[in-house]
């Protein structure tokens, strides 16, 4: 399963047509239509925050519910920690690789969902620190067959 990063979703949902990545971003999402994609709960909340900030709270909430109900998306959650001690111990493993806290949360969810094959994001700088293969939308559409 391909997991879509929050940056790809933000460019799409906020229709950032002036962004130089817009057309490739749209083409990649178009190619993935009809297949089940993953979105981590942290990416979804990041997206909801952006939509709430730039459009309004109601739109952010509407988008959240629509992702939960989507037939084409699976929202990936982390294991529920029993305690803050456990959470911090988990996080330190990822932060130790040089990830930001936000990326560490995302990496933890990717790690805990073995069906994840690919992470789609424009932010390739962290690729070697993430537990799965990373591709940009540009790289995805250059592939003959999407993974």
């Amino acid at each position, binding site marked *: 399963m391909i997991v879509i990063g929050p*940056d790809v979703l*933000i*460019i*799409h*949902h*906020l*229709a*950032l047509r002036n*962004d130089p*990545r817009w057309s490739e971003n749209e083409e990649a*999402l178009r190619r993935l*239509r009809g297949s089940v994609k993953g979105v981590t709960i942290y990416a979804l909340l990041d997206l909801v925050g*952006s*939509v709430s900030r*730039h*459009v309004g709270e109601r*739109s952010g*909430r*509407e*988008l*959240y*519910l*629509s*992702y*939960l*109900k*989507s*037939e*084409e*998306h699976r*929202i990936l*959650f982390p294991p529920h920690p029993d305690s803050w001690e456990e959470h911090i111990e988990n996080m330190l493993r990822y932060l130790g690789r040089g990830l930001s806290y936000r990326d560490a949360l995302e990496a933890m969810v990717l790690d805990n969902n073995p069906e994840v094959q690919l992470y789609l994001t*424009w*932010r*390739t*700088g*962290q690729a070697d620190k993430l537990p799965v293969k990373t591709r*940009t939308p540009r790289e995805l559409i250059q592939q003959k067959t999407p993974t």
Partner: protein
Amino acid sequence: MADTVLLQVRVSSALVKRIDELCNEGLFRNRSEAISDAIRMLLARYSRTSPEARATALYLSGRLTRTGNPEDLIFTPSPARVEVDDEE
């Protein structure tokens, strides 16, 4: 006595054993009082939550009806510049 309804429910024997222990400790007078208290807590928990939180609970339990594609929801942001992380 307040208006009450006889509610027949199946509960595991292990849970009933724990409830009986709480009754024996004097926390509740009987099973009915303990279970009524649990129901009150359950209702209070869900009455405080938003539709989004309730939908999340349904999603996690696999009982949320799936329909539609959120990618069809496109918004028009206010004129302020939207920042998206650049390629690194």
